[in-house]
């Protein structure tokens, strides 16, 4: 589902974010990506999302090579991926419902069908009663769960999460991880970037470790 082959990313000024990274994630797998901050975790996720392009090497998502994709293909590539951000990136100028419905509106779902799916997603993260609230008034943990609902509402093939538990206490972190596991169980490929080693150990999943831009461990 996700295949990196000798991928390097060099930013302007010569800074090498990742070097010669190769790994492959099968469909339906759940994998952690770990390493210190600055090790290149976010860069890997950005490359998968096509927010950035690799300087060398090749990346294939769902069997499709990313290199030849032009700006017209990028939206359709991104629609098969759901992303959870560390700072959740919710829009505070609209309600919880309108935040979650955004990916469905972008993909072109019918309004009635979209509303049904939004409620299903909210139900899954246990926040069905928060639909009409502004996300600003919710707690950090609830905001993160809204972010997750938004990432999975259009049932993406791949779920990416960048430090999803960064701002959460251990109990909330565990809840979030359980959610990811549930999505994984119904077939979604999940890749979580995190530096919370204790949590990762408890999850007992395959873990890729990055160190100064190089993949040093894959267990």
């Amino acid at each position, binding site marked *: 589902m996700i295949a990196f082959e000798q991928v390097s990313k060099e930013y302007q000024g010569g800074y090498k974010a990742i070097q010669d990274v190769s790994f492959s994630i099968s469909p339906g797998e759940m994998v952690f990506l770990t390493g210190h901050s600055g090790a290149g975790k976010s860069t890997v996720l950005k490359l998968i999302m096509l927010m950035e392009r690799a300087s060398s090497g090749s990346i294939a998502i769902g069997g499709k090579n990313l290199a030849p994709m032009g700006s017209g293909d990028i939206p359709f590539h991104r629609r098969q991926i759901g992303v959870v951000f560390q700072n959740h990136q919710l829009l505070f100028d609209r309600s919880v419902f309108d935040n979650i419905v955004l990916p469905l509106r972008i993909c*072109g779902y019918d309004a009635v069908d979209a509303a049904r799916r939004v409620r299903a997603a909210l139900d899954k993260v246990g926040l069905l009663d928060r639909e009409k609230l502004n996300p600003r008034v919710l707690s950090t943990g609830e905001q993160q769960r809204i972010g997750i609902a938004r990432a999975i509402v259009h049932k993406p093939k791949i779920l990416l999460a960048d430090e999803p538990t960064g701002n959460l206490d251990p109990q909330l972190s565990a809840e979030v991880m359980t959610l990811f596991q549930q999505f994984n169980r119904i077939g979604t490929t999940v890749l979580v970037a995190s530096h919370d080693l204790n949590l990762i150990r408890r999850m007992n999943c395959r873990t890729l470790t990055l160190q100064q831009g190089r993949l040093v461990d894959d267990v």
Partner: protein
Amino acid sequence: MSDFRASSAHPKRGAEQHVLTKQDQRRHWFQHHGEVAKDCLRQWLSAPTATLMTILVLAVALALPSFLFTSLANITRLTASWDDENKISLYLHTDLSQSQIESFSQRLLLRADLIAVDLVDAEQGLLEFKQYSGFSDVLDSLQQNPLPAVISVLAKDTGEQSLEKLQQQLYALPQVEQAVLDLQWIKRLNAMLLVLQRAIIALSLLLACAVLLIIGNTIRLNVESRRDEILVAKLMGATNAWVRRPFLYTGIFYGVTASIAAWLIIEMSLIVMQNPVLQLSLLYQSNFKLIGLGGIGGLLLLLVGLSLGLLAAFISVNKFLNQLEPK
């Protein structure tokens, strides 16, 4: 329409993805247009003063060149109604007696190269001048009629060169003090109008740029204020067309409303000017009436406003979207 292509193949594994039919996509496309239009309207109504001010500035910038073009069209129409381009006015020596003038005028009638001869003697000329110039008191105080007798002749041949040759011939006659080819000042006027037209075109281009900049800047601020929304939408797979749509609507709204306001400004100015112009043209025994932008002119103005708004929005949003392209 291509921006609502959903992934066509069911994944073999993984969560079940919704597949959109062509019909769904089309319906959604219209639905989104409707939503976006309503959203735009709501935004303008939420800041009516700022919106109105921008529209007025745009309207003035659009009205000025349109007004000048309308005026120019009116002047051109006025000069086009002067069909006596082949007219030569012969100003006779003032020391000629009435009978000498009349016999001269009759001799002119015999010439084959003239099709009409019209004698306006000095008395008649003075009367007309008194009537139309408003200087009757001053003229009354003169002891002697200062005006010469004038014979207007129409040449048979309207060619420029032959007219000039004829003018030379008539000028050489001993009774004639001056022979004026009316064509000359019409030519000068037309040349001046051409210069004026070019100046108006240059001014119009400048003002069109101003309209582009004003709308472009307004949209740029609009884009900046919705920056987060655009970033998030782009990450979720929004196409550039989807992101652009609301801003294009805003651009069109500004362009079209400003055009309508400009049209109102022009029509109202013309209504204000209509009566004085009518009086002036009556003084010249003409039934000249001002003509406004008209249907085609109005439509053109609307089209120009719409295109400028659309173009400005397109440029502004694309500048922002280009920054988001992966490098």
